[in-house]
């Protein structure tokens, strides 16, 4: 699992509050990703990072921002949480080297916005 931890693992929050999810990796992988998983939609990319302070938007980036100040940490922030952001959030990483395209996923964070 490439030493990926996510915190918190579960969170319940109210509409309109800011929320930050943290992804931490110990493998020194260059690339990091945030996905959300919803029934019937599979895994959808929110944002990704290709290096410290280098990030880009994914398919469903509206309402989310990210930051990466260190190789090992990738933060996902919901500026003002909405009920539509209730989901399971997965962080993933990928190494740079060689032919490996494999993405490793963390255990997920279940977020409920009431």
């Amino acid at each position, binding site marked *: 699992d490439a030493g990926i931890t996510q915190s918190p693992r579960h969170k319940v929050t109210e509409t309109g509050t800011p929320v930050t999810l943290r992804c931490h990796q110990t493998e020194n992988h260059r*690339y990091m990703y945030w996905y959300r998983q919803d029934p019937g939609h*599979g*895994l959808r990319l929110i944002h990704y990072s290709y290096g410290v302070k280098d990030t880009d938007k994914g398919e469903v980036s509206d309402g989310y921002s990210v930051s990466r100040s260190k190789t090992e940490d990738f933060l996902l922030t919901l500026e003002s949480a909405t009920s539509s952001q209730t989901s399971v959030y997965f962080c993933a990483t990928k190494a740079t080297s060689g032919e490996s*395209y*494999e993405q490793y*996923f963390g*255990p*997920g964070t279940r977020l409920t916005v009431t």
Partner: protein
Amino acid sequence: QQQVKQSPQSLIVQKGGISIINCAYENTAFDYFPWYQQFPGKGPALLIAIRPDVSEKKEGRFTISFNKSAKQFSLHIMDSQPGDSATYFCAASKSPGNTPLVFGKGTRLSVIA
């Protein structure tokens, strides 16, 4: 626009049978096609992957078949077991290796005894 279409959404197979999950893609620039397996409460994990230079790849009971002209690939699980019950995702990406994976919507497989 869904770049990777996966079917069926759910599948029930008898123990010992063959499970088949299909995916179709649109972007001809895709050149890496993995399958991920996800158990309840866990993150997805790579099961098997293929590049378009081969038409088939087998690892144990799991086989990917790839049809470049039809832009389709499929996962076959031979001798399906109850322990294979999980959600399976196909995905695709293009070179270089830093481009994110695009996932299908997933197939929930149940293998019954």
